[in-house]
């Protein structure tokens, strides 16, 4: 996926949100460009949803500024809402209305928009158009939410954790739909704690931790910078191996000599990042000789490595940092 270049549709500067003493978003700054899929990545409580809800005009910032399509989120919320589509994290709508009725309701709330049936067709929902919302599966409910977000023909689409809780098939279908939107030129702001999703969908991503942005760039650049192009992972044996133990010391020394960076994950794995595959291969062979029965893998780096490097762990399926 290549980086989209274009004008900014969202500009955020020193954005801050506090709840009493708790700082949820701490002077965050970034911009999102036209026709770009931008991911806000982070574990639960990192401030992703708070940040996007400020941009959706659903939450009032405590400080800083944010503009969507050139309009201020605190003063011009109605004009912004007319130009955006939103699928909230805990999406729900009128239970007893059918899919078509729910989408048609939202369509009537916008001055301009798309044909309801065309949107249902595009999202493969025509078959369930007459089904009450309450009778749909979780995946179809989320897809209905997507249709409701798209029917106003938004310039910017906000998807807050769009695949959380979905089965693999439903997740793949959602990804394909986001792909289609990106191809159509819709700017998409995505929050997620699935690294695979970021790699698959996003042009750029910002890693949020404790309300602050730790890193922001295109996804390939983030992986290059923080993940390394290839890595050697010495898996934890499950037993506690002290850093001072003979085998641990030898393994660490091999990695320290050859890798550009070495770090330990919270689960005990020892990871060495390499720029060149040949050096990684050499180290992999040396490590095997001193492995003492521990598994050693040679793997390509990804967003998960970026996360591991910056956060010291990766979010589990529920978004909690492991």
């Amino acid at each position, binding site marked *: 996926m290549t980086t989209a270049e274009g004008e900014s549709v969202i500009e955020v500067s020193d954005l801050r949100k506090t709840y009493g003493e708790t700082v949820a978003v701490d002077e965050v700054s970034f911009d999102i460009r036209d026709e770009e899929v931008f991911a806000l990545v982070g574990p639960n409580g990192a401030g992703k949803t708070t940040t996007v809800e400020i941009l*959706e*005009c*659903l*939450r*009032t910032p405590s400080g800083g500024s944010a503009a969507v399509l050139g309009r201020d989120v605190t003063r011009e*919320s*109605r004009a912004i*809402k*007319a130009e*955006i589509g*939103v699928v*909230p994290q*805990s*999406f*729900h*709508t*009128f*239970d*007893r*209305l059918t899919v078509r*009725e*729910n989408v048609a*309701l*939202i369509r*009537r*709330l*916008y*001055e301009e928009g798309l044909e309801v049936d065309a949107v249902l067709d595009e999202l493969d929902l025509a078959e369930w158009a007459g089904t*009450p919302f309450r009778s749909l599966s979780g995946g179809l409910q989320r897809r209905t*939410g997507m249709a*409701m977000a798209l029917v*106003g023909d938004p310039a910017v689409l906000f998807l807050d954790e769009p695949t959380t809780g979905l089965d693999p098939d439903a997740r793949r279908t959602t990804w394909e739909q986001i792909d289609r939107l990106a191809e159509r030129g819709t700017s998409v702001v995505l929050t997620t704690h699935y690294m695979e999703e970021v790699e698959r969908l996003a042009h750029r991503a910002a890693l949020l931790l404790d309300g602050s942005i730790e890193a922001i760039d295109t996804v390939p650049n983030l992986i290059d910078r923080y993940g390394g192009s290839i890595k050697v992972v010495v898996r934890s044996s499950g037993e506690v191996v002290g850093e001072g133990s003979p085998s641990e010391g030898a393994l660490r020394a091999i990695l320290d000599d050859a890798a550009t960076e070495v770090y330990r994950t919270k689960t005990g794995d020892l990871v060495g990042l390499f720029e060149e595959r040949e050096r990684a291969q050499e180290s992999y062979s040396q490590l095997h000789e001193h492995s003492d029965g521990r598994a050693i893998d040679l793997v390509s780096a990804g967003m998960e490595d970026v996360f591991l490097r910056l956060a010291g762990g990766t979010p589990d399926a529920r978004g909690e940092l492991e």
Partner: protein
Amino acid sequence: MKRIAALLMALLRDWSRSRETVFFVVLFPIILLVIFSTVFASSAPSFGLVVQNGDIGPGGEPTNLSATFVDRLESIDPLEIKHIDADRNLTEWSRGSDGDSRRVLVLPDGFAEDVRAQSARVRIGIIRDTVARFQDDMNDSERANVQRGLEQAEREIARNATGATLQFYAPPDDQSAAVVRGILSTVLAEFNQRSIGVEEPPVSLESGTIGSAGLTATDYYLPAFIATLVLINGVMTVPGVIAGFHQDGTLKRLVATPLRKRDWILANVLQQSLLALVLTGVMLLVAAVLFGVSAIPSPLSIALVLLGAIAFSALGMTLGCLLPNPDAATSLGGIVAFPMMFLSGVFWEIDIMPETLQTIGRLMPLYQFHRGLRRLLIVGTTDGVWPAFATLGGMALVFVGLAIRLTRWRDFEE
């Protein structure tokens, strides 16, 4: 306007597809109307009274006079007379009573003798009084003869006779005891008059009904039902629904569109107003078909129903904003609605309550709403209905404003 109409249609569709809601909001009140109307139209109230006649003659039978008195009681329609034996201990009997007939009237031993003695004493007094008035027209001999006759009669009256005293017992929680006591007092007054020879009382009372001729009990209960339904729908149902939309995220989804807050409030209030109109129509239809009610709604009565629906549903929306939990919001609605129902004189006359509660009851908007509806629908007059319009209109303005002010359109609690 387009947005309000779209939302209104969605709310009505969503509402109409909930079987539980339709049952409780439409069918349940109709069932209540049928039950209440059937019960109140077909039978007059009756009050149980247990009589213990202790005035037993030498033959073991009640004396003629006490039996006559009891017969008179049995001829009174609202009284259902039962008997217990003269020698039964009342305290023991009341412990074993099933509670249906806990009021007791005791005719004491010597009842007939005491009545006769007191009656004779009163008659002698009357004769003495009459003689005193006409003594100038009598000669000495006539006066002496009358005096002798009266003295002889007085000697024949038992010296200790002071008149009979009946005893009436009722439990402290018996709200109908006062009514039964009133009936007994009337029967006693009549009995006393006859015992001294007054067959035709100089003053008598005739009673009848006022209002439109030909109206049934259902006609009179209809305004109460309509007013109560509008209240329950607005103050108890709406808060739960609104809090539910908050809680499940439906409102948040709508807020993320260009929908205005006031459009949301107005669509909900309009939905409740339409429901109130439909309900009123259905109730009138059911009452007309089943009970032959003749109440025809006028434009003013329709306007009052609409105003009531707006006022109470706006109050409900305000309550729904205060508590985001549907159960808690419904309970809060109940806290507001139930005292209003009990104190506003909707189902029983406000006059039977203590004075302080009467004052509070008259301040309740439901009191004005019910009175206004009754005058418009049943009495067929516009006299005295304007306080209802003013109260509900003011209430609608205040609570629509408050609902708009309090409804969150940002910063939802999670």
